[in-house]
């Protein structure tokens, strides 16, 4: 089926909805939001701790301080012009969310309540600052719900349970997408002047992850298939506090409220590594501290986890400020967080890298920042590079609202300036062939086994502590798995609501993403932020103060670089 809209937004998480809302404010512009999940199911809803903005509701705070923390937190791989924009617009965006109806927790005077979060400091690193605006520990849920509600109010057109299959590019201009109606298996072509990808992250490449089963990086890989490079893919964040074995996230807000990490002997080990910020040091560091403790035999009972201690906070704080966390711990561990220690381990959490864009969400194709006209990306799938080598807690929600908003605004302008680009002949041929192959292969490899193998390998070799050997080994395994994947066969032959088919396609994206992540990690022979190499343990600004851009070419992957934009803050050693 053929549809024609002015704008297409793929993905109905925070970034996609924010953009759609901007577009909806222009009555002349017809917008459709395509999402493989119902909007309210998007993973933005899982975000807990808060959204950072220098409102200064409790104590003095400034966007510049926020910018500095972001740059330093990202180990100076941050594009500082983008970070400045983000931290400045964070403030108005948070107010805008409040005006949309977002039920923030309140201070006694009735203002938006704020709390501490890892890496957020006053006066360029002096002491922790209360910057994270929150709604209990359900901030992401509230953002997602509020934006969805506003979209309903503005009568945005949703195509829910439509899975993106392909991007349509004609002569370098992006002019549409191909999507599958999951329900009846029909292939749809959406023709548009501007297309935004806001398809979220890909944590499912790892075994222990806080990410949803549907976070498989579809948008990222589909863009890459059309010549878009992927930026800084080696920068993947592991959040220190995932529920042991399950990976379910326990918000950093827990430590923001005063929670403490302890090793087997009950020691608060962060004192040894980060004497100022302690448990609230940035995530990459805390995750590494935990791995270090485990490596040196101080994990609980010698195993690969440590404890999160909330017992000194009292029932009031736990039940009122961290109610969902308490619920998770009770349901999944059968533990009472008010009285007992919680077993935690680092969990694959957030992609700093992704589709490279400029500060208006336009997808850029190279170090010269040439754009692909009509193609935009925002949110976790994109890389404006505000997070650099490590994202600070609360900054992703800022990222999605600020850059979702900017992308939406820019699209509105773009749409008014250009005409529709004609579709190339048979734009859906590739997708139909892909589907046809998967649906017709009688026997072959099992997707589940490939997936399991991939996730274990990535967890083991491409996670918090990396080495050349491990990465090489992982590279080989992934190559083998990709081979196996070309022979993968599924059981379900129906076109009607065939979820096995979609899961199998998603596995394909995960394999490609893993391959690119490893490629990036291999060339970056230094340690920076989330990317820590045991064999190159220090940061190397002389050689690696630059972004990686990995291109898929017919002859395999090709790595290029892009300079980091530095405006105010010269790289310094990162100590907390």
């Amino acid at each position: 089926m053929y549809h024609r809209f002015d704008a297409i937004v793929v993905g109905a998480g925070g970034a996609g909805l924010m953009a759609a809302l901007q577009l909806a404010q222009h009555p002349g512009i017809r917008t459709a939001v395509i999402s493989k999940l119902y909007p309210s199911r998007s993973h933005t809803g899982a975000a807990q701790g808060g959204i950072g903005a220098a409102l200064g509701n409790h104590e003095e705070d400034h966007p510049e301080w926020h910018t500095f923390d972001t740059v330093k937190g990202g180990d100076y791989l941050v594009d500082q012009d983008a970070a400045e924009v983000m931290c400045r617009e964070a403030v108005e965006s948070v107010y805008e969310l409040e005006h949309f109806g977002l039920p923030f927790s309140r201070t006694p005077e009735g203002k938006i309540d704020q709390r501490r979060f890892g890496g957020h400091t006053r006066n360029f690193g002096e002491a922790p600052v209360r910057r994270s605006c929150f709604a209990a520990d359900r901030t992401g849920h509230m953002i997602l719900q509020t934006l969805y509600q506003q979209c309903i109010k503005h009568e945005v057109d949703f195509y829910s349970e439509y899975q993106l299959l392909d991007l349509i590019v004609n002569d370098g201009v992006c002019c549409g997408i191909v999507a599958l109606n999951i329900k009846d298996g029909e292939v749809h072509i959406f023709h548009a002047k501007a297309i935004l990808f806001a398809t979220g992250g890909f944590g499912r490449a790892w075994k222990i992850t806080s990410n949803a089963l549907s976070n498989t990086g579809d948008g990222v890989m589909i863009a890459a298939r059309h010549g878009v490079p992927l930026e800084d893919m080696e920068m993947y964040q592991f959040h220190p506090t995932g529920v042991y074995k399950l990976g379910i996230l326990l918000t950093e807000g827990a430590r923001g409220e005063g929670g403490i990490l302890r090793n087997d002997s009950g020691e608060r080990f962060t004192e040894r590594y980060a004497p100022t910020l302690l448990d609230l040091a940035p995530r990459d560091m805390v995750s590494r501290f935990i791995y270090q403790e485990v490596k040196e035999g101080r994990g609980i009972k010698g195993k690969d986890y440590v404890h999160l201690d909330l017992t000194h906070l009292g029932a009031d704080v736990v039940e009122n400020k961290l109610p969902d966390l308490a619920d998770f711990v009770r349901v999944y561990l059968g533990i009472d967080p008010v009285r007992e220690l919680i077993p935690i381990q680092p969990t694959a959490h957030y992609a700093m890298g992704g589709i490279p864009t400029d500060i208006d969400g336009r997808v850029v194709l190279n170090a010269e920042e040439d754009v692909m006209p009509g193609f935009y990306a925002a949110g976790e799938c994109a890389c404006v590079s505000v997070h650099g080598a490590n994202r600070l807690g609360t900054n992703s929600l800022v990222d999605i609202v600020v850059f979702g908003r900017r992308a939406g605004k820019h699209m509105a302008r773009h749409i008014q300036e250009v005409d529709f680009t004609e579709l190339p002949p048979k734009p859906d041929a590739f997708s139909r062939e892909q589907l046809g192959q998967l649906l017709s292969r009688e026997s072959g490899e099992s997707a589940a086994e490939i997936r399991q193998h991939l996730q274990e390998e990535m967890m083991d070799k491409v996670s918090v502590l990396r080495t050349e050997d491990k990465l090489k080994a992982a590279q080989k395994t992934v190559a083998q798995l990709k081979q196996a994947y070309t022979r993968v066969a599924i059981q379900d032959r129906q076109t009607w609501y065939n979820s096995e088919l979609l899961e199998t396609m998603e596995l394909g994206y995960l394999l490609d993403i893993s391959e690119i992540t490893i490629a990036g990690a291999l060339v970056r022979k230094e340690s920076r932020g989330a990317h820590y190499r045991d064999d190159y343990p220090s940061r190397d600004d002389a050689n690696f103060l630059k972004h990686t851009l990995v291109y898929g070419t017919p002859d395999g992957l090709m790595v290029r670089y892009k300079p980091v934009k530095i405006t105010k803050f010269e790289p310094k050693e990162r100590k907390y």
Partner: protein
Amino acid sequence: MQVTCKIRRYNPTVDEKPYFSVYRAEVEPTDRVLDVLNTIKWYEDGTLTYRRSCAHGVCGSDAMRINGRNRLACKVLVRDVGNRMTIEPMMGFKVLRDLVVDMEPFFEKYKAVKPYLINDEPAPVTERLQSPEDRAKYDDTTKCILCAACTTSCPPFWSNPDFVGPAALVNAHRFIFDSRDQRGADRAAIISDRDGVWRCRTVFNCTDACPRGIQVTNAMEEVKRKLLYDRA
């Protein structure tokens, strides 16, 4: 441990009527029922169809009937249901395939109660103020993840699909009790309709089913009392 899992199957495009498939799976007692489904789908029968995403009870995808009660498959552990389980789709909506039901009518009802803040006054430069006490009045109902477990557990809804149902009412409550909202009355018009809140017969199945622990029945009672007492 080994579990026996009986699942109601139906693909309207090929099956004449629903039937049960029985599977056995090897899982841990601390696994979620969703893990059981995944194990079956991935290693035994790829045609088994259900929705899921977050796997930890926050996205609302996988509400289904587990041993006769609406639950999120990802929020029930195997040890809590035992080694025999019967899994069926939610009641009251058309089954699209196996455990997947048609959610369109559900979201239509949600939209019908105008689930968004209505305040036409120009917004201030900073936030609109709201005291913690006022914020607390609607805290419970902001937790809703639109999973439909409540609505599809409600007997009046099963027989009368026009009933707006507890989920929509919970979301109406969310705004009616928000001090920043100005047009509770508009919303109330819909809620007080023949198939509005007055259809609720205080059965409490909804409260029992809500995976977010929302006091669903109480929210509706608060709405009823508000309609009754606030007669502006």
